[in-house]
């Protein structure tokens, strides 16, 4: 397997895995039972999508690797997810802001990835897009409900939007790998995705009576995740996620 394609697959899978893992932390802690179940379902969809890609990688790489090799044995610097998904959940408004940003990205991204030249990635995109459509609806509705809610919920939602804003730019900043593969594989054009994403976000914020954060005017964004430079938070996630395999290598149950 071409090493660029491998890295590209890891970017996609790591995004879904880490986002799913974060959302799974809500299980048993949701503000109401229905939200608890929804977040757990969304977490499962994301982890499922990640598994499909890891399984594809394992099959391509051979050498006795299985889908478990990638989430359980790589260290922090080998993970290529964007910083946005590794950030702590914060409160419910924070999580909904993070989800809105990421779901809207995934929605337009998978829509475009369905057209790519790699049949496995296209199939995964086709499958995931149907699921992400629900995720995006869920997060948009909550941002609107909280934004256009009470004075307190509005203040919290606005703060949450501002908290995560500087982590959104990285989604659309192509890594060297994305640039090198884009033409041959007909991968999504991140500039186009950004325009579609921006339109959707403005629409939701407007309906939620929220405004773009002040920092959005500066156009400065955090980045690093796509090249393996992470915040300290990812290390803590992996400590939790990988503990069993580190302590008891190859254990099964």
């Amino acid at each position: 397997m071409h090493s660029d394609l491998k890295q590209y697959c890891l970017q996609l899978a790591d995004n879904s895995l880490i986002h799913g893992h974060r959302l799974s932390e809500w299980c048993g802690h949701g503000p109401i039972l229905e939200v608890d179940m929804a977040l757990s379902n969304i977490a499962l969809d994301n982890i499922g999508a990640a598994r499909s890609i890891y399984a594809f990688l394992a099959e391509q790489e051979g050498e006795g690797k299985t889908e478990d090799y990638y989430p359980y044995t790589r260290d922090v610097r080998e993970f290529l997810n964007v910083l946005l998904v590794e950030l702590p959940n914060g409160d419910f408004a924070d999580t909904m802001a993070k989800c809105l940003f990421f779901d809207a990205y995934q929605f337009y991204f998978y829509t475009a990835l369905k057209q790519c030249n790699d049949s496995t990635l296209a199939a995964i995109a086709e499958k995931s897009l149907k699921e992400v459509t629900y995720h995006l609806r869920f997060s948009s509705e909550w941002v609107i409900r909280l934004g256009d809610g009470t004075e307190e919920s509005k203040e919290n939602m606005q703060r949450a939007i501002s908290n995560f804003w500087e982590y959104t730019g990285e989604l659309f900043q192509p890594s060297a790998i994305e640039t090198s593969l884009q033409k041959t594989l007909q991968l999504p054009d991140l500039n186009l995705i950004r325009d579609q994403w921006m339109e959707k976000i403005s629409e939701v914020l407007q309906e939620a009576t929220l405004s773009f954060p002040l920092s959005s005017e500066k156009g400065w964004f955090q980045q690093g995740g796509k090249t393996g430079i992470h915040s300290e938070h990812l290390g803590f996630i992996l400590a939790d996620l990988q503990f069993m395999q580190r302590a008891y290598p190859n254990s099964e149950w």
Partner: protein
Amino acid sequence: MVTIPAHIAAILEQVFDPEVPVLSILDLGIVRSVEDRDGQLKIIITPTYSGCPAMQTIATMIRLELSTHGFQHIIIEEQLSPAWTTDWMTESGKRKLQEYGIAPPQYSTKNNPTNYLEVVVPCPQCSSSHTELISQFGSTSCKALYRCLDCKEPFDYFKCH
């Protein structure tokens, strides 16, 4: 339309979805093809949702059911595309869901209203159409949670997907 050799279909009809045990895997439409070459079977299945935790169990149950009927060479493969849709659910599957107390998908995905407020889901208990959505995500990914405004019972809706 998937055609499955009748002698195999009769066996697969006995393999039930572990999460909605009234539905066979044929009712669900997740068996995409079956090839029987002199007793060597190749079966292609597709997951309902990416994160469906039941897929592995279903594969094991298929293997078990077929081997008790004497089949020894069974290959089961998972295929993602075309993505599973509730349009593949059989009419008898929908009827069984209804009787089980889960409202079956009400639309084909081609005419499912994009605005869910326009979706009408009759109550599986009293048939009233006076129902409302509680949550888009029910006890599993494939279901949404509704409540009946007449008989007051909450119920699951197997949503169009």
